[in-house]
Structure formats: C-alpha cells, structure tokens
C-alpha cells in the first residue's frame, strides 16, 4: 500500500511539472507543429539532455532503487514492424488533440473538460488494440 501511495504522489508531482512546463496547455502543441512557439521542443530537448547524463551517472554508480533496493530498469523498448505506422498515428493524434497520454490526465485536473474526450479516445484506442491482440 505504501508503494501505491508513493506512485500516486509521483504521478501528482509529474502532473504538476507537466503543467509548469506548459505541456498541459493545448495551444502550445499547435504552436509547436506550426513552428510558431517552440516551448515544448525546448522542454523535450532539455529533459532528454538531463536524462541522458543522469542515466549514465546512475549506471556508473551501479545504483539500486532507493525504495526496496530492486534493480533499476534500463530496458529499452524493442524495434517492431508496428512501431513505424504506430508512431505516425500517435503523432497525428498528438497534434490534433493537443495532448498526450500523461498531459491529458493532468489537463483534466486543471479543469480542461475537453481532456475528457481525449481520455475517452485514448482508452478506446488502447481497448481496440487489446481486442485485436486478444483475437490474434
């Protein structure tokens, strides 16, 4: 149970950070893809820079998880045939909705009711994928 509260807290912290970063402001997505306002590009680029350095440091220290001491996961996602069309489809939805899975949830907490539609869609899309995979 403690572990579940930890992740609830981490989710809240990440939601707050996404809000401060402008990632919960839908207009900044249109601004990004129209090349009018690159706020979110700087957010992503800086985050990757920090992540790259930090992951190397954690690996070099052979760090283990501070809570529970389990091994830290550095497992990258695999290359698949579906990755290419999937990424293009995701990108189109990202731009048209002005949101991504994490930010849509944080947007709802900010009072953006339109996020409910996006969240419904994300859940339906995930569900549709799961049904197809369950039949195959």
């Amino acid at each position, binding site marked *: 149970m403690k572990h579940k509260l930890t992740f609830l807290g981490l*989710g809240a912290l990440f939601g707050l950070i*996404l809000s401060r970063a402008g990632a919960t*402001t839908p207009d900044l997505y249109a601004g990004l893809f129209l090349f009018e306002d690159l706020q979110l590009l700087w957010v992503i680029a800086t985050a990757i*820079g920090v992540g790259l350095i930090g992951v190397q440091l954690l690996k070099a220290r052979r760090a283990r998880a501070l809570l529970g001491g389990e091994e*830290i996961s550095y497992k990258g*996602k695999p290359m698949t045939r579906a990755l290419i069309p999937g990424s293009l489809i*995701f990108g189109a939805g990202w731009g048209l909705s002005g949101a991504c899975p994490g930010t849509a949830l944080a947007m709802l907490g900010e009072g953006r009711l339109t996020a409910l539609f996006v969240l419904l869609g994300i859940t339906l899309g995930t569900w549709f994928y799961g049904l197809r995979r369950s039949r195959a």
Partner: protein
Amino acid sequence: MLDIVIWAGWAGGLAVGAFLLLQLWLTGKLLGVSTGFGNLCALGSKAKFFHTGDFTDPFNWRLFFLLGLPLGGLLGVLLSPEATFSWTLSLGPRYDSVFPSALWARGLILTGAGFLVGYGARLAGGCTSGHAIAGISLLNLPSLLASVLFFVGGIAAVQLLFWLA
C-alpha cells in the same frame, strides 16, 4: 485558469528530466504513461491481452501513477497565484480558431484524435514520456525513431488541419 504559471521551456525540461531520474532512482521504474491506459481497460475488459504480460496485475504502480496525474494538474492551478480553478471547454486561440465550437463536434474530433493517440501508442510501444523522454535518455534507437516519427505525424496532421480550416 488561463493564468497558470508556465516556466521557460528549458526550466520545464530540466524539471521533467529531473523527475525521470528521481522516479528511476527511487523506484527503479522507467517513466511511461500510455501503458497505464491498458490497466484502465483491464478493469472493465475480460480480453486476454489486458490480463497477461504488462497487465497481469492491473493494480500495479502504473494505475496509481495515472491517478496521481490529475491531482498534479489541480495543484498546478492552486499553486498559481493569478489562477482560480474553473471548468473550461476552450483549447486556446490556435485550436479554437479551427475547431467547431459546437460541443458535440469538438468532442467527436477530440475523441477521434485521442483514439489515434491510444492506438498509435500501443502499436509503437510507448508515448512521449516512454519513447521520447525515457527511451532517448537510454540511447535506445527504436525510441529515437519513434520520437522522430511522432513529430513527423504531428507536423503533418497539424499543418493539414490549419491549411484546410
């Protein structure tokens, strides 16, 4: 609502990157959000896919992480001195200028766009957080490819939307 504090892009990115590392060091778990929507599906679906692999335990950390995110959005408003909480249907000037204002039509477009996000993320194996931020931080090449294609899809769809409108 529209007066929430937004930091400079680099500062926001610094915080997102630091968060990735905090979660990784604290819990050993790599940042990722979209898989958690499968946990939500597992709560209401008997389909095999939602009860095997990543979803063997639908009440794992991903579900609680997802539930925390809206709380963070609310905090974002409450901790902004100039903002007060209120519900809004506006997406801001850019989208409002091209999307219909009728709620049903706007809702239909956003549900459809969300569907692409959810379906695309599962096909691709992750979303902005899992592929772009966590994946590239690991120097994982499939994640780099996915992230480039996220941008290609986003640019194409939004340029087309604003050109048609």
